[in-house]
């Protein structure tokens, strides 16, 4: 028995089933991301004046990732157009580029995450703050009663801030502003050098993971969820491009519709990034 309306539109909706289904799904996705964007706005307007960090993300890397996603959207739609023109070989090439772009995006995002997870802020017992990237952890690391032991010392490449900044209560503000110079944002360039810090001298050691501050928590939540969507979209498109391509021989119109539906999802994912990039990297 044939499944109805896989190719032709229903008279009541004017859409074939899969297109109606994807738009309903995208409506739920709008609510999901809408809630997160609303959370971001509330967290940001609720922060103390001047306390919201700026410039701790790398704008050129974010721009490259944005370009990669825009390119992937172009290739996905041109691939669909190629199928509409009955040119399967061209579709295959264009969709392969889309899948490569999606993998590039995930790789670049992973690099950005790695950069944050190896970026440490160390508060010393005398109040000084050393902020920089981890070079090495010396000693320690062994498991004792199921607990991993601290290293004896850590070596960072970064900058040092005087104790008065921490004592000022709003230490994060000037720190972030000075870091902006380091990461390609506004502000002046800060000279970096290597620091070897004994663990016994530290009061707090924390990397720039989601636990570091509210900004990074919402950054990792939103970009992590978005990256999962990119991976999911790439898997679906990869399946349609590879094993699922047999359908082209038996039912080309239905296959073209599948490509359109996956393309709609992909455009939604890319559109989310078009909004994520300026709010997280620029504003």
């Amino acid at each position, binding site marked *: 028995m044939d499944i109805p309306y896989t190719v032709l539109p229903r008279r009541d909706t*004017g*859409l074939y089933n899969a*297109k109606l289904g994807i*738009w309903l799904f995208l409506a739920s996705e709008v609510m999901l991301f809408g809630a997160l964007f609303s959370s971001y706005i509330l967290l940001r307007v609720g922060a103390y004046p001047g306390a919201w960090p700026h410039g701790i993300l790398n*704008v*050129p890397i974010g*721009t490259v990732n*944005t*370009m990669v996603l*825009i390119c992937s*959207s*172009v290739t996905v*739609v041109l691939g*669909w*157009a190629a199928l*509409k023109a009955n040119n399967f070989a061209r579709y295959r090439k264009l969709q392969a580029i889309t899948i490569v772009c999606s993998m590039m995006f995930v790789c670049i995002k992973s690099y950005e995450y790695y950069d944050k997870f190896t970026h440490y802020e160390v508060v010393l017992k005398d109040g000084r703050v050393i902020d920089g990237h981890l070079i090495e952890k010396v000693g320690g690391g062994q498991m004792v009663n199921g607990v991993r032991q601290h290293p004896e010392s850590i070596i960072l490449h970064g900058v040092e801030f005087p104790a008065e900044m921490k004592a000022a209560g709003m230490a994060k503000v000037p720190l972030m502003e000075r870091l902006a110079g380091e990461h*390609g*944002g*506004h*502000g002046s360039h800060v000279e970096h050098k290597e620091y070897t810090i004994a663990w016994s001298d530290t009061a707090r050691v924390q990397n720039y993971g989601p636990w570091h501050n509210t900004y990074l928590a919402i950054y990792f939540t939103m970009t992590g969820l978005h990256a999962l969507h990119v991976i999911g979209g790439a898997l679906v498109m990869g399946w349609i491009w590879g094993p699922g391509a047999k359908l082209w021989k038996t039912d080309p119109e239905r296959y073209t519709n599948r490509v*359109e539906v996956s*393309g*709609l999802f992909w*455009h*939604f994912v*890319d*559109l989310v990034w*078009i909004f994520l*990039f*300026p709010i997280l990297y*620029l504003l």
Partner: protein
Amino acid sequence: MSLKAFHVIFITSAFLLSAFLGGWCLLEFSNSRRVGDLLLGLLSLAGSVGLVVYGRYFLKKLKNIDYF
């Protein structure tokens, strides 16, 4: 809404982002005087022009496909 219509919305959004990024980078350059900011700003503005050109090409190429 078809993929064609969604793509038009997407390219319009990408154009707006690219123009905004260009302006943002040039504003940064006016404060920092860093060549990187200037290059990224000019590249973004060039990208926004490129997106307009591509948009026109796209509409011409897919004129036989409807928006729904």
